[in-house]
C-alpha cells in the first residue's frame, strides 16, 4: 500500500488521469448496464402479457370460441391461449371496480364479452394472427400490443448496438490512457528498474508495483462508480416507483438464471457491483501488462 501511495504522490496527474478514465468507463458501463437491464426487463414483462386479446360479440356461443381456439392452436404459432368467459370477465370487472358500487350495479355478466388471451411463440407473428382473427365471424374487437413490443424491441436493439460501439470506444480509450500513464511511470522509474535488474530482481518483482497500482485503480474506480450509481438509484427510486406502478417486477432472463431487476434487490445490486469491478480490474491489469510486457523485458 505504501508503495502505491508513494507512486501516486510522485505522479499525481498521471495517476488522476488513470483513475478518472477508469472511473468514467465504469460509471458509464454500469449506467448502461442498468438501463439495458430495465429495458430488457420491461420487454420481458410486455412479452409475457397477453399479446393479442380478441373480444367476441355477446351472441357468440362458447363452442364457436373453442373451435376458433383449436384452429389457432393448430397453426403452431401459438404458445398458449387463455379463455376468459363472460362470468370470468364479470369477476375481473367486479375486482377492478370494487370500490365503486354504482358501476357494479350498472353491469351484469351478460353484457360483458367473452375473450381469448393469446400468447404467440414469436412476436413477429402477431400481425398475422391479429388479421386472421379480425376476419372471423363473431369477433367484436382485436387488441394486440404489436406497437409497444415493436417500439421496445427497436429501442433495446438500438441501445444494444450503440452500447457495443460505445463500449469498444471506452475500452480503447481506457487502455490507451492507462498504457500511456504506465509507460510514463516506467520511464520515470527507469534507473530504479535497471538497478533492480542488476541486483537480481525477478520479472515479477519488477512488474508487481505496476500491477498493484493498476489493481488499486480498478478497485477504487469501480467502488466509486458503484457508490454514485447506488446513490442515483435510491434518489430515482420514488420516480421509478411511480413510473413502473402496476408492474409487480421486472426480470431479466440470463442463460443460467432469472434475475429480478425491479424492485431493487441484493442480487441485482451485487451484479452491478461485481460485473463493473471485474471489468475495471480486467482493463486496468490488461493495459498494465501490455505496457510492462513491451518495455520491461529482461
Amino acid at each position, binding site marked *: 500500500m505504501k508503495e502505491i501511495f508513494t507512486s501516486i504522490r*510522485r505522479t499525481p496527474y498521471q495517476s488522476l488521469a488513470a483513475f478518472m478514465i477508469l472511473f468514467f468507463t465504469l460509471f458509464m458501463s454500469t449506467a448502461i448496464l442498468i438501463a439495458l437491464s430495465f429495458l430488457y426487463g420491461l420487454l420481458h414483462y410486455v412479452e409475457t402479457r397477453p399479446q393479442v386479446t380478441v373480444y367476441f360479440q355477446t351472441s357468440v356461443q362458447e363452442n364457436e370460441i373453442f373451435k376458433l381456439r383449436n384452429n389457432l392452436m393448430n397453426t403452431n404459432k401459438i404458445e398458449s391461449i387463455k379463455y376468459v368467459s363472460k362470468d370470468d370477465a364479470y369477476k375481473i370487472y367486479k375486482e377492478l371496480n370494487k370500490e365503486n358500487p354504482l358501476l357494479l350495479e350498472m353491469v351484469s355478466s351478460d353484457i360483458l364479452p367473452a375473450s381469448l388471451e393469446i400468447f404467440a411463440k414469436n412476436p413477429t407473428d402477431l400481425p398475422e394472427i391479429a388479421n386472421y382473427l379480425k376476419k372471423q365471424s363473431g369477433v367484436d374487437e382485436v387488441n394486440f400490443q404489436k406497437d409497444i413490443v415493436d417500439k421496445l424491441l427497436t429501442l433495446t436493439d438500438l441501445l444494444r448496438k450503440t452500447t457495443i460501439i460505445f463500449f469498444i470506444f471506452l475500452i480503447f480509450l481506457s487502455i490507451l490512457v492507462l498504457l500511456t500513464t504506465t509507460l510514463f511511470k516506467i520511464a520515470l522509474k527507469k534507473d530504479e528498474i535497471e538497478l533492480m535488474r542488476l541486483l*537480481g530482481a525477478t520479472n515479477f518483482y519488477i512488474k508487481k508495483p505496476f500491477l498493484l497500482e493498476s489493481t488499486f485503480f480498478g478497485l477504487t474506480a469501480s467502488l466509486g462508480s458503484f457508490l454514485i450509481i447506488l446513490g442515483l438509484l435510491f434518489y430515482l427510486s420514488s420516480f421509478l416507483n411511480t413510473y413502473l406502478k402496476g408492474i409487480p417486477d421486472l426480470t431479466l432472463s440470463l442463460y443460467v438464471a432469472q434475475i429480478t431487476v425491479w424492485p431493487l434487490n441484493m442480487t441485482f445490486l451485487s451484479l452491478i457491483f461485481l460485473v463493473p469491478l471485474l471489468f475495471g480490474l480486467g482493463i486496468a491489469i490488461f493495459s498494465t501488462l501490455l505496457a510492462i510486457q513491451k518495455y520491461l523485458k529482461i
Partner: protein
Amino acid sequence: MIIFEKVSKKFPIGTTALEDVSFQIQPKEFVFLVGQSGAGKTTILKLLLRELLPTKGDITVDEIRISTKKFKEISTLRRKIGIIFQDFKVLFDKNIFENIALSLQILGINQSLISDAVKESLHLVGLSKKEDVFPSQLSAGELQRIAIARAIVGDRDIILADEPTGNLDPQTTWDIMKIFKKLEGKKTIIIATHNTDVVNSFQKRVISLKNGKIIKDLEKGEYDI
C-alpha cells in the same frame, strides 16, 4: 568458483572487447582487473553479470554455465552478486535505509530481518547514523559507501566493483579501499580499476588487460602496463 574459458566478445560494430580470455577465480579470492580504458575490464564484469553474452567461449559461475543463450536463471545468478559502480547508482528519491533495504527485498529477506541487516551493513561502511538521510545530502565518498553497503548486504557471495574509486579524492579512495580490506576472505571480490596506488598497496592477485587480452595474471601483482 568463476571460470572464463577462451572468452571473446565482439560487438556488432566490429570492436573486439575481449579476445581468448581465460582465468579462474577461487571462492573468497581478492582480484584486481587492471588496464587502461577500453582494455575490457568492464566487459568482463558485464559478462559475469550476464548483461552481455560472449561471442565465443564459456563462462561458469559456481559450476553453472552462464554463457549460453539457454541460461534463463539470470536473476538467480545476479542475486549471488553485489555490484558497485563508479557512478554509485543510488536512488535519490529513497533514503539510505530504503536504498540498502531494496537489495534485501529483492533477495526475498523477511521484512523483520531487514532493519538489523541494513544497520549492520551501514555500521561496516561507517555510516551508522545516516539511515534516514537522503542521497542528495551525502558526499561522493559517502554515496560510494552506501553502494558498498548495498552490495554486501544479504550475504551475496561475489562483489564486483567497477572503478569504485574513480570519482573520489585520494583520502576518500583509501577510506573506501579499507572497507574492501575488511571484506577480504569473506567474499569473492573483483575490482576493476586503473588506480595504480591502490593496486600496488594491496599486493593481491592482479589480472592485467590490454586491448581485450590478458597480458599478465600475477598472484601478488602490481599495476604494470
